[in-house]
């Protein structure tokens, strides 16, 4: 019977995986079509001042925009698996697989750009995630246990401040009054990348404040969410049953209340984290971090760099749908009622 269950689970996971893959393909096609509809011509943008229709046409060919959208997309997919050469003749650039494209404004393979930007975004997301989960959840539990008392009121002030202050305000305040005031980071070094494995202190110096800034509003939301979940669960009948058994309050909280109260938080946390892996545009902008967020916003607003836009959109959406899958599977492990259906 156990094996049968395992097989069923495997079947479910593979079905979901196929569905996820299909979704990612759909997203990639959609990005190509949307870009085709935009009233901007990248071929004209990279044209010099003495622009002639011939040069624009040549640029269009160079950028791979002279073929139908679907073919552009197909070449992109091929490039992902086989690598791709952009342009021809003397000015050809070859990017090895997985080739997300070639950025003419930056004269770099997009894959290389991602390789540089992703560790920054990952550091920011991981650091913020760790901060907001530890602060938000523990503060929420504390507030629920001390409902109506000082700790609860103090935490509700925190929630109010955290949720109402937008990140661009907190970010600027942090930079102005903490980072620069106390001379913690040289303004010129703000946003410099440091490898956490070889230079953990440098990494902390570069990333602590951005992470804290990004984590603030999340921590506030999670505090409120945890508090209400714990309070709600505490009044469940099965908590009274646990008490009637003679369990101590400590065991009831740890084993019975938190188990039920935190399961839904785990799923939301997974999705929030995945959302940040696509890049945190505002925080990266304020602290001058060269992550995926900054990379995509530059490509969208300044350089109309299709390959970069496609790559960042695809990465962000892939993280989301894959995390969705992970969260669903995780929830099945957490809640036996979900496992059945």
């Amino acid at each position, binding site marked *: 019977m156990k094996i049968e269950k395992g097989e069923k689970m495997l079947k479910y996971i593979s079905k979901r995986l196929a569905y996820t893959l299909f979704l990612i393909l759909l997203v990639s096609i959609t990005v190509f079509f949307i870009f085709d509809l935009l009233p901007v011509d990248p071929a004209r943008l990279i044209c010099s001042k003495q622009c002639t229709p011939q040069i624009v046409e040549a640029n269009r060919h160079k950028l791979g925009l002279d073929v139908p959208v679907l073919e552009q997309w197909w070449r992109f997919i091929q490039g992902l698996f086989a690598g791709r050469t952009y342009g021809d003749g003397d000015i050809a650039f070859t990017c090895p697989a997985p080739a997300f494209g070639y950025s003419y404004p930056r004269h770099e393979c997009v894959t290389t750009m991602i390789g540089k930007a992703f560790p920054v975004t990952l550091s920011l997301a991981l650091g913020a995630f760790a901060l907001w989960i530890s602060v938000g959840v523990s503060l929420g539990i504390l507030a629920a246990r001390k409902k109506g008392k000082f700790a609860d009121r103090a935490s509700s002030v925190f929630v109010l401040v955290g949720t109402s202050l937008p990140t661009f305000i907190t970010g600027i305040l942090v930079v102005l009054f903490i980072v620069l005031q106390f001379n913690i980071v040289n303004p010129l070094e703000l946003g410099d990348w440091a490898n956490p494995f070889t230079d953990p202190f440098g990494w902390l110096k570069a990333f602590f404040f951005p992470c804290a800034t990004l984590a603030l509003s999340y921590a506030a939301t999670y505090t409120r969410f945890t508090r209400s979940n714990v309070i709600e669960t505490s009044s469940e*009948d099965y908590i009274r049953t646990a008490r*009637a058994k003679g369990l101590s309050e400590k065991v009831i909280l740890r084993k019975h209340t938190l188990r039920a109260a935190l399961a839904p938080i785990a799923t939301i946390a997974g999705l929030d984290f995945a959302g940040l892996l696509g890049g945190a545009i505002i925080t990266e902008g304020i602290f001058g971090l060269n992550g995926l967020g900054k990379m995509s916003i530059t490509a969208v607003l300044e350089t109309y760099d299709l390959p970069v836009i496609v790559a960042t959109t695809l990465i962000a959406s892939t993280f989301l749908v894959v995390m969705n899958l992970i969260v669903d599977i995780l929830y099945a492990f957490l809640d036996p009622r979900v496992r*059945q259906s």
Partner: protein
Amino acid sequence: MTKFLEVNNLSVGFPTPDGLVKAANNVSYSVDLGETLAIVGESGSGKSVSNLAVMGLHNPINTQISGSAVLNLPTGPVDVITADTEVVRRLRGKVMSMIFQDPMSALHPYYSVGDQIAEAWSLYNEGSKKDGLKRAQQMLDLVGIPAADKRVNEFPHQFSGGMRQRVMIAMALVNNPSLLIADEPTTALDVTVQAQILSLLKDLQKEFNMAIILITHDLGVVAQVADRVSVMYGGQVVESATADQTFYKSIQPYTIGLLDSIPRVDITGSHRLRSIPGQPPSLINLPAGCAFAPRCSFASEVTDNKCRVVEPELVEKRADHFARCHISAEQLLDISASRAGK
């Protein structure tokens, strides 16, 4: 003679912005090992509230409790109302257990039933988790769950309502408690399942020589299993007697009203079902005099409007038959007999 549990003048109040809700008011009852006491009353009559106080399950922050509830243990008497909360906690699950009305929500949805029973067992027994699960399986077998060896690993949502209540009973009895408080254990169940659960409780009582307090508003349930009955109204015990006395010779107008309002197959001839007029009293402002007087059809038989002014005491009107009423037992029986004759 002292009984196993003796509750004396137990009062439970909840302070609210509108005033103190007197949910239980000088409640006294007792139950001995091997005996079943049924506590009967409508919603809000204080039957659950007083028993939750016995279990020590009220939140001390928003509850005022006075009086005493003494457990006469072999090691000596313990008053659970005044005892240290930690002492009372160590009695819960071991000496006294409780099962609840809604078995659908009383079990933790995330743990298997075996885990939940084993958890209760391991609180008071030395042994591995495996021993606990083995014991859980024994208990499930005992309460009549088929294929207990398989079902011990299943989760509450995989059980029907009746089966879940059996799981609750198994969990409550895993440490052989001397007192089981069953708070409307069959209210949420089908009638056929109700009968099964009640006879199961009866059988287990014989096996373990337990005292059972059965809280219910269902007189049919009371007739099936109770040795003694305490009827509660407005936070007070209004009548206390053996089950037979209560059903056939009740000397309290509220109890008589309750019995008149249910169909009975043991009385020959036709009789009309009568409802009790009016609403239960507000527990914040209890009426002066007898709490039942505004709804009582006998109050007019008493001179000087006494029922509305003087609160009657719970007195022994006949041998081992206590009632709270200004009218004497004989007079009450006469009046109700003549009314039934009409």
